[in-house]
């Protein structure tokens, strides 16, 4: 007996999916390689990259202007989909907030350049606001957020927060949605993050999951960044002299924990609220604390390099932390 004929559309759709998978880079590889000047100018030597592909890639990512991170994130922050930004401790929430809002400001600026309003929606769980402080309008405005296009939401529980986030992702007017939660709630597991991911892919509104004091756990986010506070560069006076006692632009130590790259990448960067962009920060230039008793004890963050013998295999998904 003949088998049921698979509809032609299904076969075509499957073929298309396979072709897309194969065209996509295998996991672990970063950008194809650093391009030569000629390639960048449009003279493709091997014909490897089609001009159209590059254009779409440029539209879907937001380059941060920090080569190390951009390289690990294959060009920049993905503008479609869920990106997780976490801090290990509540007291570091300031750094993560600043970094996330910097990203949101970049997204907003991008929309504004197209002549749109580009509102930002910041959904903050009640506990998150109580523990780390409520959003402060003056500070946000000084960081470069347009308050005339910023909505703040304080839902009563996580379920409401997820509903609002999902609803917002259905409206492509938003330039970015920030969902701030505390810890690793059981209500926000793989299925929920997958829903957010798919919604965001559909509408093209990036969603940043800002996780305060949370462990790393399996989620559908393509990208997970761990943000740590970093000492700011000295304050620069308008005439160019450095004021060593002053505190300069907000600085962050960003570790890309989950990317397509093999090993985690980290970078120091600072946000210039005047230019409204990130700058790479040379960690050497970050002055060691003046009154630290023993500067040698302060170790640089060892990233992805545990002291013992490396375990075999690769962690594909973490256990649920909640």
């Amino acid at each position, binding site marked *: 007996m003949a088998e049921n004929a698979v509809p032609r559309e299904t076969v075509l759709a499957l073929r298309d999916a396979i072709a897309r998978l194969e065209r996509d880079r295998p996991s672990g590889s970063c950008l194809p390689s650093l391009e030569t000047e000629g390639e960048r100018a449009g003279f493709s030597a091997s014909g490897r990259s089609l001009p159209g592909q590059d254009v779409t890639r440029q539209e879907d990512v937001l380059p941060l202007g920090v080569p190390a991170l951009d390289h690990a994130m294959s060009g920049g922050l993905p503008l479609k989909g869920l990106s997780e930004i976490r801090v290990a401790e509540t*007291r*570091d*929430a*300031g*750094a993560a*907030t*600043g*970094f996330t*809002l*910097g990203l949101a400001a970049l997204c907003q600026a991008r929309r504004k350049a197209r002549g749109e*309003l580009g*509102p930002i929606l910041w959904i903050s769980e009640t506990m998150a*606001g109580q523990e*780390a*402080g*409520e*959003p*402060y*309008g*003056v*500070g*946000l*405005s*000084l*960081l470069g957020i347009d*308050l*005339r*296009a*910023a*909505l*703040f*939401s*304080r*839902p*009563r529980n996580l379920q*409401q927060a997820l*509903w*609002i986030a999902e*609803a*917002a992702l259905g*409206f*492509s*007017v938003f330039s970015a949605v920030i969902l701030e939660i505390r810890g690793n709630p059981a209500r926000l597991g793989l299925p929920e993050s997958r829903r957010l991911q798919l919604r965001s892919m559909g509408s093209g509104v990036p969603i940043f999951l800002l996780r305060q004091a949370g462990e790393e756990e399996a989620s559908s986010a393509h990208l997970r960044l761990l943000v*740590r*506070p*970093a*000492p*700011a560069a000295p304050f620069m006076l308008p005439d160019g002299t450095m004021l060593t*006692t*002053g*505190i300069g632009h*907000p*600085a*962050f*130590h960003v570790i890309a924990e989950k990317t397509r790259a093999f090993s985690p990448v980290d970078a120091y960067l600072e946000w210039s609220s005047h230019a409204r962009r990130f700058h790479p920060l040379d960690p050497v230039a970050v002055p060691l*604390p*003046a*009154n*630290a008793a023993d500067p040698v004890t*302060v170790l640089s963050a060892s990233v992805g390099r545990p002291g013992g013998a490396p375990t075999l295999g690769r962690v594909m998904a973490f256990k649920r932390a909640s």
Partner: protein
Amino acid sequence: MRIVALDSVADRLRLKRGQGVAEARAMHPQLDVLPADPAADQAFLSALADWCDRYTPLVAYAGADGLALDITGCTHLHGGEKALLDDVLSRLFQLGVEARGAIAASPGLAWALARFSTARLSDDSVIEAGEEAAALGPLPVTALRLPETLTDTLIRLGLTHVADLMEAPRAALARRFGPLVFLRLDQALGHDDEPLSPRRPVAELSVERRLISPVSGEDDILGLALQLATGLKTTLEERGEGGRQFELLLFRVDGKVFRLLAGTSSPLRDPQRIAALYKERLAAVHDDLDAGFGFEILRLCVLKTEPIKSVQDDFSGRPDQSRALADFTDRVIARFGEDVLSIAVLAASYIPERAASLQPAGDAVFPAGKMLQAEEWPVMPVRPLRLLTHPERVEVPAADVPDGAPERFFWRRTAYRVARAEGPERIAAEWWIDGEDAPTRDYFRIEDETGRRFWMFRNGLFQRERMHPDWFMHGIFA
């Protein structure tokens, strides 16, 4: 214990209000006595008033035991005055409510007739114009809504019926009893005007559907709401307005009425969006909305309208931005309430917690008018990204100099070493609000060894305002 209310059976037994319960029991041992519950009575009356909304939007309380309905201009919808009264009384009878009613040109006369008319019900309970005096005359003076002491005096003087008052010389009686007696009389006769004050503001517009078979499903209700909203659209367009506040009334078969309010952030007349609003509302009240045997009447009212500017769509094909945003705001607010979404509003104040506040976004998402921007401040201050709702106490064991920045501090049971500090930024109290002896705050921007940046202040000037001023954590920088 005394009797406050009687049912019709007890009335026929010639019991009286105000009589002692013991006395009544002695007369009729089989008497059934229930304790009075004025609050429950009031709740029941209010539910009945809701139910009466089906006849007219102008329903007012008439004392603690009655309702007055202004049916001006409504009677033709129900087939005339008589038919309307019969409909009210028969429906109430089916609901198990023993009610009496009368229709008259003045609320006072209707009140009197409904309570004191000796004629059988539905005989002559509709008083035509010109028959007021004849109808009111034979009633007792208690029908005039006068204070009890006044009524007693009148009865003792032999003025037992209203007709006696009508014939009596006015000047002498008014001198003795005050103006109230004749005011009430004139009001009942329609010589003097007496406005009814409806319980609820009258809706600007409303449309309703009466159903032959009741509906109970959420989808049916939504479909009907969409139809009703479509019915509103033409009128709103003619008026050049859109609704800012809508109310959907669901009349349940057994007389209970549900009211679902929904506000919008911008004037709205698109039926689809109004229906979408109610989709969220219904989802939000899902558990409280007991459909029972179904709803028989649905009414959509517009409580508040505002002029709408008609905007032509452009050719870009992009959806209108502000409309999409308003749509999102309305949906979220309809579902979770008004305090869920807010916008940051800046104010001209140097006190940090007064300089910015989060205010509900409901009214207008982003006000078209000018909003204060931080760049417009005379000096660009340094301000944190997040502000703690209440400044938290910080223990500072050591400072460089008594009025300088701290070197070490404890916050939330953790020790921090200060690597760098900027400050002080001295912010004096707003004496016109806080009083003259409110302490001055010295704000420091502090970076600890790992690079966390905090905003702390010393509450009071050292040794001038406070002997040993306390330190507080107020904000967190990026």
